[in-house]
């Protein structure tokens, strides 16, 4: 059973090899993921985080960039762990957008 992350040997198209600076939200997400991980809060391990990303719907997975995959997998995993709900995240995003 090929999961959406398992693309070895499949046509992948061109690769952009130019270096680029991570965006602030990508840095923030990396910090949050680290803070709940094995070195700090021990809420989840890297293997669970990988699994949560691989569990995403394949078409949805293919439509996302790397840190978008992190976002979606992380929300699902935190919901599974009882830390927060997707509805809470979406409500917060809506509130932040309304403030801008």
């Amino acid at each position: 059973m090929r999961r959406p992350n398992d693309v070895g040997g499949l046509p992948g198209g061109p690769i952009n090899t130019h270096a680029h600076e991570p965006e602030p939200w990508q840095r923030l997400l990396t910090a949050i993921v680290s803070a709940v991980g094995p070195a700090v809060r021990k809420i989840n391990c890297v293997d669970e985080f990988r699994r949560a990303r691989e569990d995403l719907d394949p078409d949805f997975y293919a439509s996302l960039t790397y840190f978008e995959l992190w976002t979606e997998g992380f929300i699902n995993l935190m919901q599974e762990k009882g830390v927060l709900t997707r509805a809470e995240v979406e409500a917060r995003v809506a509130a932040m957008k309304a403030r801008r």
Partner: protein
Amino acid sequence: MTARFKPGDRVRIRDANPPGHRRVPVYARGRAGVIERLCGEFPNPEELAYGFDGLPKRPLYRVRIRQTDIWPEYKGSAKDMLELEIYEHWLDPA
């Protein structure tokens, strides 16, 4: 640790398709190769991925496979090898 294989042993990666988080890429399943080294023993990541402790630890091997045995249209040297790290429960003697 009771490792079933030693360097030089011929093995075949299982051609299995279990659902869930698995640590063997589809392209490597069913391929034969040679044990290059025993890397150590580690909690099973396929269990850790679901919140279990992954114990008992599982032996992990570096398996050397000919590129021409993986990619039918491989254009490089027939001596080219791919090394993959594979847990013992995915390996059979070949």
